[in-house]
């Protein structure tokens, strides 16, 4: 499959040598920010923070947000965690995370009800499968961070199996999975029936999914340690027309090969990722990324990276493109003052010429007395029309990938102040885009974590 991809995707011998070296050298970790799989081009993406709640704790959050001349939006959330029952309820107008989730135990079984983001195996049948050009495609295991919500329903686990009843992509689905080191899954809805089989081990996993029409897709990943190096490889192949019942609108490459490695060198930790993929004939792409990260004697960290992208990243992308990018980053997380700076530039010609997007950002973290913290993140960007650039913004309970367009600068100021046995979190967004100042957006949330006696 790999050789077939090479034939379709014009890769010169020199690049193959570079790719081989990249494979032997490391996998890009502090990559340029990319949206999670399935996010539409140029759209913001919101995910829940990976913050976990201690057993027996309850968290309450009440917040408002708004902008000058706009209606104030209210948000509320409750989280609770107990050994036998835990859950989250979010409510708010235009809150993309609104909804509820309850997880609990009943006898020998476990249930999950509400917002669901399950992932079976490699996610080919159920769950977001990875984009082969992202480092997340190398991850092993069903529970990965950063998954987006897929649907709503009920999931019941017992005797190593899972029973699913839910609504995904505006259709009702029922599914059953026999989980374990070897797993089988079946998913059925009005639009058809799909099944999958796979294996899941500590150092790798594989899955093959197919439907009644004979369309199929298979994917496997393997991780190994070789001395000071961690090496990983993933491969995907199958029918071009295969679509998951749970996410028919999302179509990743039908064939892909991804190689990554990470290891310590005299210069620092070196990471690389090389990937080639194909949606169908004539719709292929490739990515090669190298990054080096070096801790400095004063506790700060320095990293620099280089990347080349070719081809398409979407089946419907009009034209194949060539992009070459480089970035440099320095940061020091120290109390009371932490500072970081990053510059990233992309060009549509070799040697970073013909700049299509560039962003320079600084971050400042200040730890004041009595638990008061303040932070400021400021970025100056220039994005050519048709290009995508994302900025990661931390909210009180969420991560937002903000899609940037045009040129301008964006600032986020955050302050956390202990108040009323909780914490008040206030944020202010200042946005100047294409020479015009946008109305400043603000948000305030009070949250409290408590452990009932």
């Amino acid at each position, binding site marked *: 499959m790999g050789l077939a991809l090479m034939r379709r995707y014009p890769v010169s011998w020199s690049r193959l040598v570079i790719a081989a070296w990249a494979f032997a050298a490391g996998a890009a970790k502090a990559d340029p920010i990319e949206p999670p799989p399935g996010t539409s081009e140029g759209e913001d993406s919101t995910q829940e923070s990976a913050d976990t709640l201690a057993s027996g704790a309850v968290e309450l959050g009440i917040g408002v947000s708004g902008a000058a001349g706009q209606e104030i939006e209210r948000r509320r959330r409750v989280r609770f965690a107990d050994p036998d029952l835990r859950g989250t309820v979010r409510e708010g107008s235009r809150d993309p995370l609104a909804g509820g989730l309850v997880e609990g135990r009943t006898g020998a079984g476990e249930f999950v009800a509400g917002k669901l983001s399950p992932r079976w195996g490699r996610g080919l049948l159920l769950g977001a499968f990875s984009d082969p050009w992202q480092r997340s495609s190398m991850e092993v295991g069903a529970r990965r961070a950063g998954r987006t919500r897929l649907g709503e329903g009920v999931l019941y686990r017992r005797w190593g199996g899972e029973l699913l009843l839910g609504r995904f992509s505006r259709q009702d689905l029922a599914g059953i999975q026999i989980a374990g080191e070897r797993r089988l899954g079946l998913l059925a809805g009005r639009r058809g029936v799909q099944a999958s089989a796979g294996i899941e081990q500590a150092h790798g996993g594989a899955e093959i999914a197919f439907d009644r029409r004979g369309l199929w897709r298979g994917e496997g990943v393997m991780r190994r340690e070789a001395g000071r190096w961690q090496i990983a490889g993933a491969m995907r192949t199958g029918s071009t027309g295969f679509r998951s019942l749970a996410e028919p609108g999302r179509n990743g490459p039908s064939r892909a090969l991804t190689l990554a490695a990470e290891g310590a060198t005299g210069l620092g930790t070196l990471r690389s990722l090389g990937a080639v993929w194909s949606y169908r004939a004539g719709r292929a792409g490739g990515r090669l990324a190298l990054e080096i990260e070096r801790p*400095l*004697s*004063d506790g*700060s960290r320095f990293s620099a990276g280089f990347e080349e992208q070719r081809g398409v990243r979407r089946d419907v992308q009009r034209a194949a493109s060539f992009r070459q990018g480089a970035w440099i980053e*320095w940061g*020091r997380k*120290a109390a*009371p*003052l*932490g*500072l970081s*700076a990053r*510059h990233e530039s992309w060009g549509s010609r070799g040697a970073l010429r013909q700049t299509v997007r560039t962003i*320079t950002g*600084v971050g*400042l973290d*200040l730890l004041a007395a009595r638990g008061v913290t303040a932070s*400021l993140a*400021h*970025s*100056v*960007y*220039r994005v050519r029309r048709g290009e995508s650039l994302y900025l990661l913004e931390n909210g009180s309970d969420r991560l937002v990938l903000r899609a940037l367009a045009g*040129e*301008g*600068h964006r*600032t986020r100021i955050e302050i956390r102040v202990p108040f009323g046995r909780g914490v008040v979190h206030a944020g202010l967004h*200042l946005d100047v885009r294409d*020479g015009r100042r946008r109305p400043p957006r603000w948000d305030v949330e009070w949250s409290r974590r408590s452990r009932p006696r």
Partner: protein
Amino acid sequence: MRACVVVMILALSTPARAQEFVAPTPAGPAGVSAILEHGLPPVGAEARIEALAARWHGLPELAARSIAYGAGWRELRWAVGLSRFGDGELGWSAVAVATGLATEAGGAALRLCARRDAPGNRGVECGGGAWAPIGRHARLWAAVPQLWTEGEPPPLARWLEIGAIAEGFGIKAWLSRTAVPSRVRGVRADHFAGIAADTGPITTWVSLRDRPPRGSLGVTAARGALRLGVEVESHPVLPETVRLGVSWGSR
């Protein structure tokens, strides 16, 4: 006619740097002007009063006269300054205040500058900066002098500036990159590099800027609490810019 020439010169020069409180000193977080113009607080808490004068491109209409005072107590730093830039219809008065914290491990400050021109238009800009050491001999700074503006737009749009300065063996070398908005070519970057040598009470430096290529030569001399400085900056088309500074410090 003279006003038209001045406006044309302002458009040609497009300096990305500050105007009112520019002191003839090497770049980096040091001195009263650094906290007032960039929000970069100095490490030392010494009190210092500074008188500054500048003549941009040899034109008396673009002359600036400023006085600034800065001091500190423990980690706290503050400064205040008054300035008059230019004469007649093109001139304006400015008052700036800045306050922040600084230790050997880093510093951060907020600055605010309010201006009023001859017709009575008022404008305010608010921003800040921070710096942190990189190892024992280098520092990195970042400044956003105009994080927020209100009222009459400032005479120069000043966006994010990131710079680094390395020191050792009596030599300082720096490099900074400033994002400059341009209506014609979009956001672009200006670069500023320089090297300074400390020889006892005398500090001499040369620096280079791009867009357009410019060079400057400066020297400061200190005797006791008194410090004098002068800097001359060339321009490929326009006459030189001359800056003078006299300051008196607590030590």
